[in-house]
């Protein structure tokens, strides 16, 4: 079920009071949350539950076995169990996410070689009916999937993998119980679209009594209200009035409109995803849990490297810790460091979707980061050669502003330009967006498109002090007043709801 639905409201109205009524009893409150989480997930499709239960059983066992092997000093056995976890989880993820792409590519190769074989039909003949989808990817309707992608599989797979890997590395002890681990995997606020939570962050919270006070409660309500507004008002409206019309018919619109739509898509995906993350964090807080932040003002970055430390942080930090650093990270010499970076960024792209355009997305960002690192290395060398100490410009200083003035346009082009390929969905549409244009100018757009566009920019540039001031107001206000504000936000978003649009990141 979606956060922005009547069903979720009813769900929370039952679950939340029950949880706090049972708060004294660890077993009962965990059991209630687990049942609630499975019910939440099962409402998408009941058979999705079999996959998450499989993943939970597999990694719980693997975690136990890895720890036992470590305790006895048997590294070979520990490695074997780790491999089982990796193969099992990534195998399931790979099947659901990449099989279509694999067969499409094989078909392309076969056709190019002049073969008349229909591999796609062959694939369809192998698949059971309930797995077959035949629906269009809502972000890029031209791409039709044959295999249903279970909601949230990309997220919870990475979560469970972090568990077994951290146990293997000795950074984490296995969960106290299967129930605890199952709840870690399936905790409903973050199950379907993150944030990707590490076991080391979540499991200790299960051992503590849940905490709620006025500040936390108001913070939770505030996050939920803000998240809802970002998703429904900023993301959905900019999609409806600017992004979709232009991307669906790029040849009709002028180049300026293309630029607005490309940036608009960046705003759409940011508000959609950040909105969901805010709601997830707020809902979790109502139950006394703290989830990690996923965004830290990413569009205030002035470099692509900085962007990836502020955007979808839980994913980028996951890949940094489990892929990039183990490969050697930036510590390696070039070209090995470049390879490490490209491999990680391409994986980020592929995590999002099975398409060469996603590979392209990762590659563009990787190359930009390599250029930035090389530029910095070159400046360091020059400074050394000149006998001068190399220092990075501090934010807010004149040197920083000068640097930002040159760096920001480049950053905009890379970040927004590469993400536009995601929405374009096909090389043809991408070509039309970047290389061809029509006649309809900005005056042809709805006024709402421009209002939301400008509004999003304003929010991005809002000073931190204003944000902090608002938080202080929220913490001090009476609970009923905060709830009235939330009620008005719910009503406004209910008015604007364009059917039940799922979160964009559900399809990853």
């Amino acid at each position, binding site marked *: 079920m979606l956060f922005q639905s009547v069903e979720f409201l009813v769900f929370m*109205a039952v679950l*939340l*009071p029950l949880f*706090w*009524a049972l*708060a*004294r*009893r*660890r*077993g*009962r409150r*965990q*059991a209630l949350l687990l049942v609630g989480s499975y019910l939440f997930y099962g409402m998408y499709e009941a058979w999705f539950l079999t996959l998450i239960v499989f993943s939970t059983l597999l990694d719980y066992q693997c975690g136990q076995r890895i720890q036992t092997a470590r305790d006895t000093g048997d590294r070979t056995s520990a490695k074997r169990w780790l491999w089982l976890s990796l193969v099992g989880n990534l195998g399931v993820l790979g099947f659901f996410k990449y099989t279509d792409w694999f067969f499409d590519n094989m078909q392309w190769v076969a056709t190019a070689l002049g073969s008349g074989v229909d591999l796609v039909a062959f694939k369809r003949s192998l698949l059971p009916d309930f797995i*077959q*989808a*035949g*629906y*269009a990817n*809502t972000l890029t*309707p*031209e791409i039709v999937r044959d295999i249903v992608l279970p909601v949230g599989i990309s997220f919870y797979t990475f979560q469970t993998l972090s568990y077994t890997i951290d146990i293997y590395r000795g950074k984490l002890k296995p*969960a*106290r*119980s*299967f*129930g*605890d681990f199952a709840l870690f995997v399936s905790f409903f606020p973050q199950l379907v679209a993150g944030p990707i939570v590490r076991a080391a962050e979540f499991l200790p919270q*299960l051992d503590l*009594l*849940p*905490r*709620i*006070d006025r500040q936390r*409660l108001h913070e939770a*309500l505030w996050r939920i209200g803000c998240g809802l507004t970002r998703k429904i008002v900023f993301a959905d409206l900019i999609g409806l009035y600017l992004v*979709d019309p232009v991307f*669906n*018919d790029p040849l009709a619109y002028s180049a300026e409109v293309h630029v607005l739509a490309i940036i608009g898509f960046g705003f759409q995906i940011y508000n959609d995803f950040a909105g969901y993350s805010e709601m997830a964090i707020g809902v979790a807080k109502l139950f006394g849990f703290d989830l990690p932040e996923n965004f830290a003002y990413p569009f205030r970055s002035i470099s692509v490297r900085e962007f990836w430390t502020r955007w979808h942080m839980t994913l980028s930090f996951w890949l940094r810790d489990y892929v990039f650093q183990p490969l050697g990270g930036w510590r390696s010499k070039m070209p090995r460091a470049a390879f490490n970076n490209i491999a990680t960024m391409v994986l980020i792209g592929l995590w999002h979707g099975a398409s060469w355009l996603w590979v392209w997305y990762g590659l563009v960002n990787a190359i930009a980061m390599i250029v930035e690192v090389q530029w910095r290395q070159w400046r360091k060398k020059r400074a050394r050669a000149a006998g001068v100490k190399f220092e990075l410009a501090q934010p807010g200083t004149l040197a920083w502003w000068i640097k930002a003035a040159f760096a920001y346009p480049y950053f905009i082009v890379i970040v927004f330009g590469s993400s536009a390929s995601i929405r374009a969905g096909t090389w043809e549409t991408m070509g039309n967006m970047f290389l061809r244009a029509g006649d309809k100018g900005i005056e042809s757009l709805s006024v709402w498109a421009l209002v939301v566009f400008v509004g999003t920019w304003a929010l991005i540039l809002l000073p931190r002090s204003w944000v902090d001031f608002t938080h202080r107001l929220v913490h001090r206000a*009476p*609970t*009923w*007043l*905060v*709830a*009235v*504000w*939330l*009620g*008005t*936000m*719910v*009503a*406004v978003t*209910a*008015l604007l*709801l*364009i*059917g*039940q649009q*799922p979160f964009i990141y559900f399809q990853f």
Partner: protein
Amino acid sequence: MTDSSPQFGGDPSGGDPPTDEFAQLDAERSFMLKRILHILLGLFVGFAAVDAVVAQVDASENEAEMELGHPLLSWTNTVDYHDPVLDRHHDRYGLRNREIEADADPTEVRIAGFGESRIYGAGEGVAQDDVWNHALERLLNANRRVPVRVLNGGVMGYSVAQSCRRAVLLLDALEPDLVFVTVAATPQALIEDPDLGGFVEVDGRFVSRAMAARWPEPLLPLVALGDAVLGRWSAIYTRHKNREVMQGDLPPFFLRWRYFGDPKGRDYLERCLQATWDSVSDLRTACEERGIELRFAILPDTEVATAERWKEWLQKNGSLWGLPADTQPERSIDALEAKLNGLGVETWNMTPEVKGMGKYFFQHYIRDDVHHWTPKGHQRVAEGLMRWLLKDGLLKRLTTERAANPRTQPFGPPPR
């Protein structure tokens, strides 16, 4: 499961947190349970405040020209509706024509046309008298003793299935001599989701089919009650319900089935088309039982009007439907005509009229609308309909038959 159950990490030794931690939890729990009431109250107040504003806005607008939430048609024209600004008037049956007098001539020939917004006469600058039915009346009655009345049963946004169902509902009240339904080879016209549209009756209340599909059957009476209460008290809920009943305001209709949350494939499309053919058959049967002539007027949309428009349409949509670049529009029109003939109904192919209108496109189609007709366009359509009515002596035959069998009442009561 108990607190010490190992499944949930219970300490088998039965150890509990220190008493002061429990005391703090009890205080926070009591705080939270009380605050939940505050939250629910605050949510209600905040929501109700916005809802009240929306209710005021909706009430202050002119009475809606469409009646939403019709149990069988999803929506239909509001009866006795009058908009002097746009010059749109509906009679007591919700038809867009002058009010039908109580002492109408029982021997008059009546023609009733049904369709979507083009037939309704939507579009800027189209006055009531400009619409095709009045234009046709003027043409037909120019040199006749026995009057012809032409009734406009068009409703904005209708599919062919809805038009057919509306026609069936009105047959007894109107007692027409001839009914025609306009049809085009477009998704709006032909694709009718049998599961989404319409209503189901639950405990004497009508609940939209889409809503009924979302809840388990045992809960439906409660859902119907909630729907009735919210529909009565919440303007925001009413807006959403109406939008859902109208099958949403999603992007182009022909893509709408692809945007549904549930995956749908070709067999779903076949079911949607079959729903349309079933409605056509139902109307044919109803007309045969009453001795009413029935025709389906194939009236293509503007993409057929000119070669350039067709080429542009094909460029945009061809790959979506797997159409080769040399596809001609007649291919779909011929297929549609063959299908309708196969269902046992006669057709009027008005492609020549549409192509004729295309030669002077902006004289016949409203600029920046490019779908609805100007007054000149309505006139052209009326001339085309007259051509078909006069062909093979159809109108003459209808006149003779009606004279031999006059009606026993001017008009029947409007259907409930």
